[in-house]
């Protein structure tokens, strides 16, 4: 049966009966098929708000597409030692990526471990083209290896592997330096370069797990910084607040939250003259209104 010979209304209704994972597989059939699906399913594609790449241990990658309230797409990429080429995600027959499990709940594709980066970049490029740029793309990783840097990523969450170097961390942001939100779980002291892309991220959340990472506080150039479970000395925070209050840098910073068990709140308040409510210190000067919440 020649699907593409049916009237557009029929094609639209057939596509409407397939989930996004099925539509993706159908789109691999030909370029024309992909274009027809994109054209006739625009209204459904619009509902897709986010696509998140979860890089987990064992080199497993889960791709989850969500609307405001439900999951619309779920794919898994798992490593394998086999070599089967299937020409999926527009990568041609040379790339070892193949569909192995057509389980109703989640389709699984297998890939050769050594090709991981090429595969994920290829899959992302295809999804970018298929779903267009209206979707927000996110990366979340707790893998033992850092994921490759992908283009057009809106936000990411990294649980950094032990001993990640500053250069390796920097590499993650090269293709998408202007992310709106980044969260980093930093289970070690990481000396990030003062010119790092990370400091320019608009909203940065860092969990430091009792490690001293003062440089993040002093070099941050974005709008909002949240530092959780950080190790800070009182004098560091006092120095920072004095500088911030007297407008010596940190012009773009509008929100700062520091969670640290080692700080003496009263001492800081006395030294900086910051008025405090029960939980939140508020500093106001000039035209800027800054709220500094502290849990110390």
């Amino acid at each position: 049966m020649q699907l593409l010979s049916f009237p557009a209304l029929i094609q639209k209704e057939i596509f409407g009966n397939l989930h996004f994972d099925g539509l993706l597989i159908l789109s691999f059939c030909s370029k024309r098929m992909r274009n027809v699906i994109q054209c006739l399913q625009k209204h459904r594609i619009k509902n897709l708000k986010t696509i998140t790449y979860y890089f987990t241990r064992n080199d497993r990658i889960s791709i989850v597409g969500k609307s405001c309230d439900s999951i619309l797409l779920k794919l898994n990429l798992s490593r394998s030692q086999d070599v089967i080429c299937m020409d999926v995600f527009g990568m041609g027959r040379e790339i070892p990526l193949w569909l192995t499990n057509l389980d109703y709940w989640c389709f699984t594709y297998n890939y050769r471990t050594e090709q991981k980066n090429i595969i994920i970049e290829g899959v992302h490029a295809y999804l970018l083209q298929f779903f267009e740029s209206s979707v927000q793309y996110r990366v979340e990783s707790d893998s033992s290896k850092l994921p490759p840097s992908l283009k057009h990523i809106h936000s990411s969450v990294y649980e950094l592997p032990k001993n990640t170097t500053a250069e390796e961390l920097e590499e993650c942001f090269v293709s998408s330096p202007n992310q709106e939100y980044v969260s980093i779980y930093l289970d070690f002291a990481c000396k990030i370069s003062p010119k790092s892309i990370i400091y320019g991220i608009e909203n940065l959340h860092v969990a430091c797990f009792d490690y001293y990472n003062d440089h993040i506080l002093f070099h941050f150039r974005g709008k909002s910084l949240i530092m959780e479970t950080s190790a800070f000395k009182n004098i560091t925070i006092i120095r920072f607040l004095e500088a911030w209050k007297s407008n010596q840098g940190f012009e773009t910073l509008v929100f700062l939250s520091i969670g640290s068990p080692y700080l003496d709140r009263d001492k800081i308040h006395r030294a900086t003259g910051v008025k405090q409510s029960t939980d939140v210190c508020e500093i106001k000067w000039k035209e800027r209104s800054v709220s500094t919440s502290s849990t110390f």
Partner: protein
Amino acid sequence: MTSPASSSEVKYLIESSEGNTFDVSGAALRQSNTFNAMFLNIGADGPIPFTDYNEATLKKVFEYCEHSVNEENYSGPKHQDDLSKWDLNFFNEMDQKMFIDVINASNFLDIERLTSYCCERIARMLRGKNTQEMIKVITLPTAEELEAKQKVEEKKAAAAKKVAEKAAETAEKTETLEELPVQQLVQTTRNKLTRKYLSFSNE
């Protein structure tokens, strides 16, 4: 033959592509939005021509309509698992060609319920299949077939180009041949006129 009265007793004559006619109840026909828009209010004077579809297809479509006359109002497509035994038999006894004809006819006649079931059935054929298996269902040419087709087309184009070039060459030669007598004719006429003029002026 028919009046616009909307009683279910009323029968309408339908004409197929073969020119054959058969009757369908008004109640069944009213499931077709196309019919409703075109004939329900104004009535039909003579057989209603649905001549893009053959008799077997139209009979199949209206068989479905006749059957679903007494069903509750249509409220969106049902999952294939919810289809009745009659529905399943109805679909299963069709071969692929008939199935495709029925979809197209149902689409033209705008019979929502039948169209939806047909589309759901096709989607079901595609579900749980990989790309290669899908290609077989939707009869898309494979990459190899496309390549072979392209080669054939290239050969055809090259042959056509040769033929066109030869034709152009032949036409050019013919043109030159045809041009000669015309030029001669013009020259002869000119000579004649000159001679006539000269003789006239001598007189």
